[in-house]
């Protein structure tokens, strides 16, 4: 078997908010074109981990990140052009944010920032991304409506469409289906399986079964530490290294 290409290498990542440490030395590799699941109880540092990947500590003077995150061959803390970095990383956080502009403009925003001006090209991107986010049918007749006034679940899918419109190399999904109904969630999950051909996906989820359905490998976080990372099937059914992993996936705590 050929060794997989490493897309993202994290070494001894530490994240603190003020004095409080939220992530205490996590090291892991994410392979190209895999769906990498992260599970763990509330407050285990999953969201913080994703924030660090997009250099979001720059938005919060309280948040401190140390350690090494290598993406695209570069330690991201050395990248001066963080804008280019963030453009290559699409993020979807649990609280959906429809920007106060039209649905169309929401999805066209990132391409426009990249300099796409051609109307036909924008139309194509908007339709493709909204379709992939399973939102197109609901909004195709009101693309001019305000994105910020869509329903919660629609805004969440709009956020997904926006992340896809970045044409990202890495897609970070944090509980993306929290406000989305089960049927639509399944549709999006199917899309994610297809997207894997082009994009590397990190999927944080509180639904362990979602990780089981989607992820190629899954990491278990607990109190800011990585308990273990393994092939998803192994983690759920096989020999785990740590009893706490077994207890968590079987719902005995968390």
């Amino acid at each position, binding site marked *: 078997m050929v060794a997989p290409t490493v897309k993202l290498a994290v070494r001894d990542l530490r994240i603190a908010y003020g004095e409080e440490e939220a992530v205490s030395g996590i090291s892991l590799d994410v392979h190209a074109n895999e769906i990498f699941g992260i599970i763990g109880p509330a407050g285990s540092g999953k969201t913080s981990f994703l924030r660090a990947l997009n250099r979001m500590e720059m938005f919060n003077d309280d948040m401190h990140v140390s350690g090494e995150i290598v993406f695209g061959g570069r330690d991201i803390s050395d990248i001066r052009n963080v804008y280019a970095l963030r453009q290559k990383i699409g*993020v979807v956080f649990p609280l959906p944010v429809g920007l106060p502009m039209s649905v169309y403009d929401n999805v066209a925003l990132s391409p426009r920032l990249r300099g796409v001006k051609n109307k036909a090209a924008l139309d194509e991107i908007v339709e493709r991304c909204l379709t992939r986010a399973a939102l197109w049918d609901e909004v195709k007749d009101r693309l001019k409506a305000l994105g910020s006034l869509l329903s919660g679940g629609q805004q969440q899918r709009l956020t997904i469409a926006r992340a896809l419109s970045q044409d990202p190399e890495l897609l970070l999904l944090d509980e993306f289906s929290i406000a989305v109904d089960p049927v639509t969630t399944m549709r999006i999950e199917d899309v994610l399986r297809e997207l894997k051909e082009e994009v590397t996906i990190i999927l944080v989820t509180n639904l362990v079964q979602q990780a089981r359905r989607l992820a190629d490998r899954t990491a278990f976080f607990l109190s800011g530490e990585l308990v273990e990372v393994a092939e998803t099937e192994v983690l759920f059914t096989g020999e785990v290294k740590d009893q706490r992993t077994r207890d968590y996936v079987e719902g005995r705590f968390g």
Partner: protein
Amino acid sequence: MFEATNLNRRNHQIQWLFKVLFGMMTLILIVPVALILGVLVAKGGPAISMEFLFSMPRNGLTEGGILPALIGTMWLVGVALLASVPVGIAAAIYLSEYAPDNWLTRGINLAIINLAGVPSIVHALFGVGAFVVFAGFGASILAASLTLAVMTLPVVIVATRESLQAVPMAFREACWNMGATRWQTIRIVVLPNSVSGILTGIILEVSRTAGETAPIMFTGAAMFLPFLPQGVLDQTMALSMHLFVISNSIPGMSEEFKYGTALVLISLVLLMNALSISFRVYLRGKKKW
């Protein structure tokens, strides 16, 4: 099952008591304002006529109209707006969108709030030193307006910052996360959703300066000028100054003229306020999130 218990009844009484109490406080607040307006309208109303509003004063200010003062006040407020708006908005954008949250920024913010409390006579002295003498504008609309502008800058900054900060942080983060720069984010989501609030807030604050006397008295306002100002380097009459002069220094001035002038001044300010408030209400009706 919905019968009121004793506790329910008592809570209800207490809540009623507080409502009445707070309502009465509001009344106490309204009474003086209503009285002032009532007196002004009753005593000054009869003076208001086309001639009063649109002709030059005659016979040592005791006859004729207040046209040069009315026009002068518009000049002063207009030029003050032109000067303070760009500077104030730029400073507020810097403080709200760019400045890191550290002791220096907090210090500057505190200083701005305190500056808003500096008495206008102090601004007047500053204006004489800085604009009339040092900058060499002499006593002129320019010097007086700049003095007003400096005086209103703090409130302009505070009003602008409040509007900017009413735009949720989540919108900014969503934009930054896509790789937008700070400026792109300001241009794309922050300003479009705050600019109307900023402008109405500023008009509201700055129109209040129409009533200021001290800052313009030594910097550009004249007791009497037989002509209308032609440019910013002219001196000018102003309503507030005119009111001050005819109330204090002119013997045999008719009561009607004094109250009439005051009525025009307060109507001008109220008109600006009403315009900006109704604009604000209109915008609030079109909520975007």
